[in-house]
């Protein structure tokens, strides 16, 4: 399945958001996820099914003013 993850194209087998994070070695409770501009809560990642072409954002805390 083709996905855009943080702006980069990925070809991954993962079918849920949780699987995608694992596949790409993302972990930690400081991460926030959005799919196609909608927030996906941590609790919902396991059942959140991805579709071809989905745009996923995986964010974490950074310096900001």
């Amino acid at each position, binding site marked *: 399945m083709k996905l855009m993850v*943080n*702006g980069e194209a990925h070809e991954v087998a993962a079918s849920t958001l949780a699987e995608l994070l694992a596949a*790409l*070695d*993302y972990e*930690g409770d*400081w*991460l*926030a*996820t*959005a799919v196609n*501009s*909608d*927030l996906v*809560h*941590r609790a919902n990642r396991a059942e959140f099914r991805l579709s071809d072409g989905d745009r996923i*954002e*995986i*964010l*974490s*805390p*950074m*310096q*900001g*003013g």
Partner: protein
Amino acid sequence: MFDLLGTKLPSRLLLGTAQYPSPAILADAVKASGTAVVTLSLRREMADGRAGEKFWSLIRALGVRILPNTAGCHSVKEAVITAKMAREVFGTTWIKLEVIGNHDTLQPDVFGLVEAARILCEDGFSVFPYTTDDLVVAERLLEVGCTVLMPWCAPIGSALGPVNIMALRSMRGHFPGVPLIVDAGLGRPSHAATVMELGFDAVLLNTAVARAADPVGMARAFGKAVDAGREAFGSGMLEPRDVAVPSTPTIGRAVF
């Protein structure tokens, strides 16, 4: 203590976390400043890079309150989703709302700001809007549910200090009951003292401290200046006078 939306804070200085020479210096600056609230952002995490984790651990260790921001957002949509993601990560309903309207001055887009503030207030956020010194915009922000305002005093990172004292005084005068935090544009401790003397409730800084030759010393200096300005505001300052007045009693002067 400074009561900010029901939270008692020991300091009226809020600090940004960007642009420091190193995380260690950031941490030392936060401690030296005495600040109790820092603001930070969300950014894309690189796979198996652990930038976010390291930074987040550093911040948590400081034991300060977090004010997440939507810095860099140029649209309502971007700002709203970023705010929601921040709420999940940081576990707070506080959000410093930035909707940037101009790439050069980084000033707020007051139209997008009011709209995003309305959406987020309805969703239960405590919105800290980064706004201009426009009284009418301020009224709109209060109408849509904001209970604090963060007017700029000059463009972000300009270090110009208060470029329009008249407008700041007018803002303070029109919203006596609303916490007003000067956000952006301060360059020197004297600038911070000046706006605190006008009766503003707090200031938020970043560049002036982070980019100083000695950020830790500068953080300490700003912390003192904010205290000084607040204390002066409460102690009844002299109005400037045009004519000189002797500061020594003239009675009993010797005649030689």
